[in-house]
Structure formats: structure tokens, C-alpha cells
């Protein structure tokens, strides 16, 4: 599973609980690919994926969070995707 966090440097909202989210995802998903993408460098890709607000999180190429979720929200989404029962 691929989780991509789109952010812009210097943005307080983008840095909020980024590390905790990565930890949640890493612990939960065995084959996780976690990417943090600076939109200043990856603008075309962000447009392709459909990012329109920052920060955003896309899972397997689909924007699922248009602002940073709580750890609980991310965990719930990942579990759903893994096909496990919450």
C-alpha cells in the first residue's frame, strides 16, 4: 500500500502530526510505502492525483484526506483498506 502526504515547507498545518501518522501507518501496514511530497517540487504529480488543498493524504493514488487526519482516522482508513475488521 502506498500512502502519500502532500505538503508545503514552512506550513504549520502540514507539519502538525506528520510523524505520528507515519508511525501509525508503518506499524499497521506491512508493505507500506510512505512518501512525503513537497508540492513545490511535485506540482504536476499533485495535480494528476487531484490534490487541491494542503496538506492532503492520498492512499494508492486516491486523495482521501484534504487535511491531516487524526491518527485514529488514518488507522480506521488503513484497516478498512487492509480488509480487516475495526
Amino acid at each position, binding site marked *: 500500500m502506498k500512502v502519500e502526504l502532500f505538503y*508545503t515547507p514552512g*506550513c504549520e498545518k502540514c507539519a502538525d502530526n506528520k510523524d505520528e501518522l507515519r508511525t501509525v501507518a508503518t506499524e499497521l501496514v506491512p508493505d507500506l510505502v510512505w512518501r512525503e511530497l513537497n508540492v513545490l517540487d511535485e*506540482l504536476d504529480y*499533485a495535480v494528476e492525483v487531484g490534490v487541491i488543498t*494542503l496538506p492532503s493524504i492520498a492512499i494508492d493514488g486516491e486523495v482521501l484526506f484534504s487535511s491531516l487526519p487524526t491518527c485514529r482516522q488514518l488507522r480506521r482508513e488503513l484497516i478498512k483498506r487492509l480488509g480487516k475488521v475495526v
Partner: protein
Amino acid sequence: MTLTIGRVASVVKVSTDTLRYYEREGLIAPTSKSRGGYRLYDGDAVRRVRFIKQAQHCGFTLTEIRGLLALRADNAACCGDVRRVALEKKLQLEAKIKAMKGMSKALDRLIAACKNGTRPLDDCPILAALQKGQRQ
């Protein structure tokens, strides 16, 4: 510096109706009123209207501009916050451009399907393609 609404309008090249509209939208406010009840502005109003015009030129809506002006006045905000807003606008514009390019390509296909413009409407391939899409 004290300016009447007419003077501000003339300096920034917008109508007085526009300035009144900006006032109703909470983007500018007169600093005082004359004895006759006319709105009076200071130099900051001119700077704000220029800011609004420039932001509109970059695609920002008045609601977004209100947010930008609030951000400008927020001591806790930094340049990175403003850049995030500008980047979000850019992403939204690029998404619209992408959608419009898709529409343009769809029109290309429809136009290409019509080789003969003299056929009756019943045989019009463009209308037929649109009707087919309607049924789906």
C-alpha cells in the same frame, strides 16, 4: 490623508459601486464619515483595494481574499502560510485546466465524428453521441 469614495475609486480605477460592494463584503471600511454622511477613507484603503485587484488577477475569489487579508494582519502567521494558500489556488487552477482540456478533447472527438455538415439532424453524429451518453 483623507479621501472620498470618488477619489479612491479614481485612484485605483474601480467604480464607487465596487468599493461599496467591497465594504459590504467586509474587505474595506471607511475610517470616518463627513458631516454630510459621506464615506471617508485613508491611504490604507487604497493599498487594500490594490491588493484585492492584484489577488483577483491571480484567480482568488473575494472570500479567499478576505482570508488573505486576515492572514496579512495575523502576527502569528508567516510567509509559509501565505505560500500554502497560493499553492492551493494554483492546484485548483491546474485541476480546472486539466478538466477543461478533457472537455476540449471530448469536443475534438465529436467534431471529428461529423465529416459531413450537410446531413439532416436525424443523422447528426454529434447529437447521436450526446444522446448515447445521456442514455448511459
